[in-house]
Structures are given as C-alpha cells and as structure tokens.
C-alpha cells in the first residue's frame, strides 16, 4: 500500500469515528474574494507569495526606519532577537539561532515579517517593503547577493543553510507529507 492510500484509509477511519457529532449547518459559504483577503499565509515552497519585489539596497532603508531600534544595526540584535549571524554555532556550546543560521525556509521570513512585524505596527508595510526587508536580511546572512531581486519566483528558490537539519518527530506514516517539494 502506498503512503498516499494509507493516508486516505486513515482519513476515512478518522472521519468515520466522529461522524456521530453533526452540526446544525450554520456556516456561511465564503466568497472567494473574501477568502483571498483573509488568506495571508505563505507556504514553505513559496505558494501564496504576492506580486511585488525588492532588493537588499531598498531593504536597508526600510530596516533602518522600521526595525533597527529593536533588532540592532545589521540585524545584530539589541533589545530583541539577532536576525543575522550564528552560522556554524549550532553544534557548539553557545548556539546562536537566527534567520541565517537556523531558519529552514526563506518563504517563512516573508510570511512572518508581513504578519507580525514591525512589532508595534504589524500589517503596515507594503509587499515591496517586505520583499526588500527579506532580501536585506538574506543578504546580511550571506545567503543571496546584494543586487539580487527578491520576488515570488526568486524567493521560493532560495535555499537556507540549515534546510536539511530538521528531524520531524511526528509519526513516520506522515513523513512524506512534511517536506515541501523542492521548487523547480
């Protein structure tokens, strides 16, 4: 039995076991345009990345204005987390976990900054600004070149240094579904 059909079988069993509880059916069908406005997440493979673009050079200016006060010059950390550095420290006595040393997926950086940063004014930056910040932080971490433009296509292709160093503890039957396919 393939993993896929095993999954389908498991699913049938689960659905079957809770069918006892039935709801009054009060959900209101959502209009696709409303769904699109709510659907802000970006998957690890880049699905959901919006139109727009930016470079590290643009990002440096946005960073100085909106991020530096809390995360320090060049992302070196200050009041809040360091966003740069730490590569090569993860198996030592004082590991430094940053975007550059630890995060497995670049798309997550776009997703997180757009939903949650800057801390005091989340959801205030344009997609271009978030692309530019993403480019700037990836550049500072030595992952992309200074002039490289980040957009939906290029960001999905960025390979993070710590990409292969996560071991999913969730049951083996689910493993094939955990790692996103490599972007082509």
């Amino acid at each position, binding site marked *: 039995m393939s993993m896929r059909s095993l*999954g*389908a079988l*498991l*699913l049938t069993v*689960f*659905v079957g*076991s*809770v*069918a006892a*509880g*039935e*709801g*009054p*059916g*009060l*959900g*209101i*069908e*959502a209009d*696709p345009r*409303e*769904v699109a406005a*709510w*659907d*802000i*997440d*970006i*998957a*690890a493979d880049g699905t959901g990345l919006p139109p727009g673009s930016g470079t590290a050079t643009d990002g440096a200016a946005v960073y100085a204005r909106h991020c530096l006060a*809390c995360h320090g010059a060049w992302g070196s950390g200050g*009041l*809040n987390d360091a966003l740069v550095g730490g590569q090569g420290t*993860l*198996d030592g006595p004082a*590991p430094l*976990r940053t*975007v550059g040393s*630890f*995060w*497995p*997926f670049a*798309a*997550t950086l776009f*997703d*997180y900054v757009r*939903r*949650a940063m800057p*801390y005091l004014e*989340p959801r205030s930056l344009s997609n271009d600004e978030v692309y530019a910040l993403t480019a700037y932080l990836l550049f500072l971490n030595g992952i992309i070149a200074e002039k490289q433009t980040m957009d939906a296509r290029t960001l999905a292709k960025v390979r993070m240094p710590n990409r292969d*160093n*996560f*071991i*999913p*503890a*969730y049951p083996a039957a*689910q493993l094939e*579904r*955990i*790692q*996103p396919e490599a972007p082509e």
Partner: protein
Amino acid sequence: MPGRSPEALKLAAGNGLLHRRLFMKRGAAALGAGSLGLLTALPSRAAPSWMRAPGRPMTGYGARSSHEDAVQRLTASVPGTDGCGISLTPLQSLEGTITPSSLHFERHHSGVPEIDPDAHRLLVHGLVKRPLFFDMASLSRYPMVSRILFLECSGNSSQAGLEPEPVTDTCGALHGLVSCSEWTGVPLSVVLDEAGVDPAAHWILAEGADAAAMTRSIPLAKAMDDALLALYQNGERLRPENGYPVRLFLPGYEGNMSVKWLRRIKLTARPSMTREETARYTDLLPDGRSLMFTFPMQVKSVITSPSPGLALAGPGLYQISGMAWSGLGRIARVEVSADGGATWAEAALSEPVLSKSMTRFRAAWRWNGAPAVIMSRAIDDSGAVQPTRAAIIAEKGMNFLYHYNGIQAWRVGGDGQVTNVYA
C-alpha cells in the same frame, strides 16, 4: 493507638515516607485531627468582629478573599514589550487539579487582543469543498463537549532543569507554565465535516486574531480526533488571555498549538512551516540538528508542597502534595522518594484520574529534621516513565529549550528551607 490502622503508619519507603493508605478513605482519619496542622496562637474567647455585624451584600461577580491577594501569576516579558511574554501559575499556592481561570498561565506573542465577539469570524477554507465563515452566535449552537484537560507550554520547566547550576525559585516560577481547566466547545471535526474535507488534505493551519497572527500547522488526524473549538473555560466564556471568544484546544499537545483568538483554519496538503514550528518550538540537539513537530507533552510530575518558599516548621508529619500529567494519556502511578531516589513509595492519587488531565497525588512523610531530598516520578498508562534529568541531558544535550520533563528534586535543609537540586 486506638483507631489507627497500623498498616497506614507503616513505612513505605526510606527516610520516613508512610504508606499511601494514609490518604485513602478511612486512612485519613487514622492520622487523628490536628496532627498535620500547627496551632500558632491560642484562640480568642471573644466573638470576632465578623460575628457581630452582618457581612457585606451579594455581588454580581465574585472575588476571592483579600487575604489571598498575594497569590498571583508571575509575569515576564521580552524587552521593549509588555505583551510578548509569559505569566506563570503559582502552583505552590494551589491545591486540587483545576486552575482558577484568573491564575491560568499565559504565553502571548503580541499581547491580549480585545476582540468584539460580534465582529469576530472563523474562516474554514483551503482543501475543502465549501469554504465557510462562522460567527460566534452560530458556533454556540453546535453540539458541545466538556473535558477537563491540562494545557502546558512546551517551554515549561526548562529553567528548573536546563541551567548549568540549579536555580531556586518557587514551584510556580519554575514549573508554572502548566494549568488545568474544564474546556467546553465544539468538536473541530464537526465543523470540518460541514466544510467537506478534500482527501488531499493532511494538515491544517490555525491562525489567531492577535497582532502576531500566531500560526501553527496541525496534523489533520489530530484535528479530526479530539480537537475542540473551545468557547468556555471552567464554565464561563473564555478569558481574553485564553483566547476569547474562541480558541483551538488540542488535548495533550504543546500549548502553543492550541491557537487562541482563532480566526482561520486552512486545510493543506503539507505543514506550512511557520516561524512557530521552525525557528521556535523545535529542539536543537548536540549534533546541530533539530527535532521538529514534537507535539505531545510527555509524562511529568512535580511536588508543589513542600517546595521553595514553603519552609517546613520543624520535624514531624507532613503531607507531600504534587501534580502529575501526561499528554499521552492517563497517569497510572506516581512514586515519591524522600531519600534522593534510593527508595520509592507509591503516592495516593485523587480521583478522578483523567486522560490528558491533571492528577493530584499525595503522600505522608515523617520528617526527622535532617536534610533530605524529596522527588516524584510519574508513569502514564502508555507505560512512559518520567525520566531523570541526567537521562534527558545524555540524550538531548542542554541546548534545547522545550519538552523538558525531568524528575524534580527538592532539597529540604535542616532549617526546613527548600531548594532546587540536581540529584
């Protein structure tokens, strides 16, 4: 000794641990009244002031005695913020198993949002036949279930066991990112069934309506098994700091996944790899690799009394009281040692002992006044045994932050003061 069951007073393990029967049914009476307490002053002969005038009137919403005001959550937040941080349940001041809602621990990533329930919607979409919005009034009409369940932050207890030298603080300061409530809500499966799950879906993404729009990926199997859309906590609507008006609740799973202020559930083929399941809530191992998706909270117990800050008043008979819980099931047994782990006695468990819930255990201890190390270890019905600190560190090193469930040892000094020790 008339009326005393000799068996109950027999030693059950070294250094004064008495048989657990002491705390069961008739056994408790065998102790004799007053033998666990100390009268500190002679009772007054005059009627107290509160018996000489009528008390205060009824109130619309109750409050505890002002004499209990010192029982507080400890709070701590990330520099530069007052809402990104934690508050810890003062375990050392509580008994039984239910955490008062006002003392339930908190972990917020960007403060507590003030949500108007009439304006709040839950969207279910992604790999479903029909994307659906639910308002809170409609959700309240769905069939509900109530369960008494613990919730624990996966970062709980790391300060108690993963510092180079043992840190002494109150039990709540060290282990208070765990609480237990009765949660009432709609099984998530009912709502997912209504939307019509596409067979290609294997995960869900849950998103909160706070300023961090906190997101986690959850296996669909868990969502369909026992996940709740919780609307009530301990009988009343959720507290804002616990997700008002609706939170996800995943019994036994690390607290962060039970997304508060739930606004969106998206069914997906694969996990979304959000910041909270990659950069955070993953366990860095000594070889530089990290465990991810370490969902269930493992079996754990801690003695809440005696514990640091609750000094023993002198040699004599004491109750050892503590809590045990497991995200894998029910607590099968708790063992207590008063000689640093050389010998163990079985503790009495207070009924009911429920799956993925908090269990109260108690043991009787005759302290001889000499320094002693007391500890507890829990075993759950999956057979999992709470490990020692040394075993955990041998396996996972000391660079990880989450899912530390080592045996907690408290040292009782000759002066009765209690400190954290690595034993």
